[in-house]
C-alpha cells in the first residue's frame, strides 16, 4: 500500500516537473510576448497542481497536507490572475500580438 | 560532498564582488543601490552558511527527540533583523535619489557633477 502511494506520488511529481519544464521551454522559444506568457502560465498551473498533490501523498493525512491544500488554493487563485494582469498591462501599453519584435523588446 | 564543501563561500565571494562592481563602476544611483543590496545579501549568505551544521534542522526544538542536531541559531537571529534594517536603509537611499532627481532632473552621477560644476 505504502509503496503504491509512493510510486503514484513520484509519477505525479515527475509529471509536474515535466509540465513546468515544457512551460519554461515555451517561455524561451515561442515567438511573441503573448504566446510565451500563455505557455508559462498554463503549464505552471498544471505543474503546480501535480507537484503539490504529489507532495501531499508523501505527507500523508497531517497538518502539512492541510497547509499544502491552502497553498494550492492560493496558487490556483493568484497564478491565473497574475497572468491576466500581465497580459492586460501588456495590451494597454501597446504590445501587439504576433509582433515578435515588440515581444523581444519586452524582454 | 567534500568537493562542494566550500562552494557556498565561493558563491558568496562572486555575488559580493558583483554587487561591489555595480557600486563602484555604475553612475546610475538606483543601480548603485541595487548593487549595494546585492552586496548586503551576499553577507547574509555568508552568515547563514556558517550557521549550518551537518544533519541539522532548523533550530526549533522538537519535544521528545533527544538526539536531533540543530543548526546554529545565532547567525540566523543577526541576519533576520539585518534584513529588515536593510530594507529601511534602502528606502532611505531611494528617498534621497528621488530628491536628487527632483532638484537635478537626473540620477546619473556624471550629469549631477557637471550640473554642479556649471552652476
Amino acid at each position, binding site marked *: 500500500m505504502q509503496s503504491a502511494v509512493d510510486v503514484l506520488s513520484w509519477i505525479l511529481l515527475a509529471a509536474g516537473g515535466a509540465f513546468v519544464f515544457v512551460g519554461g521551454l515555451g517561455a524561451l522559444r515561442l515567438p511573441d510576448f503573448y504566446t510565451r506568457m500563455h505557455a508559462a502560465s498554463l503549464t505552471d498551473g498544471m505543474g503546480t497542481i501535480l507537484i503539490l498533490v504529489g507532495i501531499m501523498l508523501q505527507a500523508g493525512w497531517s497538518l502539512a497536507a492541510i497547509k499544502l491544500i491552502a497553498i494550492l488554493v492560493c496558487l490556483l*487563485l493568484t497564478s491565473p490572475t497574475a497572468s491576466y494582469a500581465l497580459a492586460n498591462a501588456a495590451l494597454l501599453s501597446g504590445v501587439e500580438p504576433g509582433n515578435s519584435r515588440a515581444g523581444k523588446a519586452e524582454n | 560532498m567534500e568537493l562542494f564543501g566550500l562552494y557556498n563561500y565561493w558563491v558568496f565571494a562572486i555575488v559580493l564582488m558583483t554587487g561591489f562592481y555595480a557600486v563602484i563602476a555604475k553612475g546610475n544611483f538606483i543601480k548603485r543601490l541595487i548593487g549595494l543590496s546585492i552586496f548586503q545579501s551576499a553577507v*547574509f549568505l555568508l552568515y547563514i552558511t556558517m550557521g549550518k551544521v551537518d544533519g541539522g534542522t*532548523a533550530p526549533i*526544538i522538537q519535544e521528545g527527540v533527544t538526539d536531533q542536531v540543530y543548526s546554529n541559531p*545565532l547567525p540566523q537571529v543577526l*541576519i533576520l533583523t539585518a534584513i*529588515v534594517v536593510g530594507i529601511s536603509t534602502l528606502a532611505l537611499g531611494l528617498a534621497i535619489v528621488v*530628491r536628487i532627481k527632483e532638484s537635478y532632473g537626473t540620477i546619473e552621477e556624471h550629469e549631477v557633477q557637471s550640473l554642479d560644476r556649471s552652476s
Partner: protein
Amino acid sequence: MVILFAVFLLTLLALTAVAIVRTENLFVAVMLTGIFSLLMAANFFVLDAADVALTEAAVGAGISTVLFLGALALTAEHERSVVSGRWLSMGIVVVTTLILIYATFDKPRLGDPRAPVHQHVAPWYLDQTPELIGIPNVVTAVLGSFRGYDTLGEVFVVVTACIGVLFILGVRRGGYSPSPDGDRLTTAGSGLRHHLIPKVVGRLLIPFIVLFGLYVLFHGEYGPGGGFQAGAIIATGIILYALLDGEAQALKAVPRPVLMGMVVGGATLYGAVGVAGIALGGSFLDYSVLADDPVKGQQLGILIIEVGVGLAVCGSLLSIFHAFAARGRH
C-alpha cells in the same frame, strides 16, 4: 541529493546577480532583484534558516520590489551607459574575488560541526532555551530575550529610517517640473481600479494575507515566525490593497495617524517592557520578573515585544510606501 539542489540554487543566484548588474534597463534589474531574493530565500531554507527565509521572501521579494518600482516611477527607467573606469573597476573586482576565494580555503567546510562558530555561545542557547524560556523556537528566544538589546536597537534603526524617509519626501516639491517619465505614477496612481479580475481576487486574498501575518506573529514561539516577518507580511497585504484600490483608499483604511501610532507605539511598547522589568525589580529587558513564574514571565515578555516589533515594522514599511506613492501625486 540536497547538496546538488543547493549547488544548483547557488549557481542560479550568482548568475542572477551578474544579470542584474549587466542589464541597462532598471525595470528589468528590479524584476531580477525579486528573483534574486526568492532564490536567496530558497538558499536560506536549504541552510536550515526557516525564519530568515520567511523574512527574506516577504521583505526582499515583496516590499523591496514595490519600493524600487515606486522610486523608478519617480525617476528614470533607463540607465545611461556611461561607465567610468570600467577596466580599473573590473580589475579590482576580479582580484578581490580571487583573494576572497583563496581565503575560503582556510575556512571550515560547510556544515562542519567542529567549526569555531559552533563552539561558543550557540550550544548554550540551544541547551538553556527549553529550561529558561520554555519555547521551542530558539531563534525567537535568542531574538526576544537573550539578545533583546540588539533587537531593541534594530527596531529603533527601522523607526529612525522611517522618520528619515518621511522628512526627505514629506517636504513640498521645489522648482523642478517633473518629466513625462515621472508623471506615470500619477495616471497609474489609481491602481488597478478598472480591472475587475485582479480586484476581485485581490480583495478575496487580503484578509487571508493579514490573517497569515497574525498567525506568523503569534505562532512565532512554536514555529518559524515573529514580529519582523509578521510586520512585513501584513504590510504586504495592505500595500496590495493600495495597488488594487488606489493609495487614497488604503489611507482611508489605515490613516496616517494610525500608522504613526503603530510606529511610535510599537517601539515604545518594546521599551516599556524593558522599563517594566526595572520597575518590578529586575534589570532592563529582564522578563523573568513580569510574572510569578520566571519562565511564564519570559514567555509573556517575548510575546509583548514581538507585538511591538510587528507594529513598528508594519507601520514603518507602510509609511515609507505611502511617502513614495504620495510623492507622485504632487
